[in-house]
């Protein structure tokens, strides 16, 4: 039984104007079949207008232990948010 079909990660655009979102995965022999299967498995109720499939072993992911070094530096940079600045009312909308 060592002839397993590769695993594909499935991304679906739910509506026009939205970005593709990861919805799950499935096995398929190739990209074409992965798209066909994704249509049956993940869009039975009009959940999509477009499908992307990516073979799972082609996805590189950050490691959970990198959480600190990756994301903590931005915590101290409050000035990146517009609410950091007081704008006088007289100036109007900005």
């Amino acid at each position: 039984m060592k002839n397993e079909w590769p695993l594909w990660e499935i991304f679906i655009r739910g509506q026009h104007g939205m970005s593709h979102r990861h919805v799950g995965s499935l096995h398929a022999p190739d990209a074409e079949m992965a798209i066909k299967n994704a249509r049956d498995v993940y869009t039975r109720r009009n959940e999509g207008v477009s499908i992307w499939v990516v073979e799972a072993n082609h996805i590189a992911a950050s490691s959970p232990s990198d959480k600190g070094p990756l994301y903590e530096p931005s915590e101290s940079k409050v000035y990146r948010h517009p609410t950091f600045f007081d704008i006088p009312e007289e100036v109007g909308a900005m």
Partner: protein
Amino acid sequence: MYAQMIKSEATQDDPEKLAAFQARIDAGEKIEPKDWMPEGYRKTLIRQIGQHAHSEIVGQLPEGNWITRAPTLERKAILLAKVQDEAGHGLYLYCAAETLGVSRDEITEMLLDGRMKYSSIFNYPTLNWADIGAVGWLVDGAAIMNQVPLQRTSFGPYSRAMIRICKEESFHQRQGYDAIRKMAEGTPEQKKMAQDALNRLWYPSLMMFGPSDKDSVHSAQSMAWKIKMNTNDELRQKFVDQTVPQAEYLGLTIPDPDLKWNEERGHYDYTDPDWSEFFDVIKGNGPCNVDRLAARNKAWDDGAWVRDGLLAHAKKKAARQHAAE
């Protein structure tokens, strides 16, 4: 339930890591596949999600049995869509299990050779069309009881699979109730069939929640890990309380002479199923255990040339493309 009597695996991990892990769960954080997790958590989840997935897949058999014999074209289309959903449920769950490091083939092999179980309910036959109504109403109804709280389970991929499944599940129960209502409101013979289906499927449905809490030894760890959200008896009681008025509306009688409303408890008192029958079915001696496993094995064996052929074709195509570049 779809996953019955899941034994929690003991865990021998660093106590400090265990405490930090438990703190994450207590804080309501989701555990994702690449996060550190105790070995027992991983193994228990593989078993539970696997058994759940197998139940969705094997559960197609009793209903698929009636697709070609549905009474109208509309009922046939509805049943087909319902059974197709169950295939999807199985696939969502297999993928969730695979994120824990088990392969699809391994987990399939364990079903086919009997090392892994599926829900006891699917070892009962569907003898006629009324049974199809009763299955949607009672079996999917019982499944929903368990799946709704599992949307909040601690393991991210399992939780997300449950959310998808729950979105589709209420169609299943409604179409079943609608089908049996048609019969309950039909001719006296049809009503008799509806009652007979309820008589046969009532106790097997109650068994879906697993043994009584006093005999269910593996719950505490799973509940602490939030991979089991309620006790078996809690869910069974909820199911009985919800189902009795639905049966009353149909003019059908729950086959339990001792069933009655308990004002003090605010719940129905009911008779437990015959647990010796349940354990016997789990052991492989239910009316359909042999048929179900034989059907799954046949499907797997008969499909081998398709799996191999498509993979060979894909490899050839990829090689050709590679050579052309």
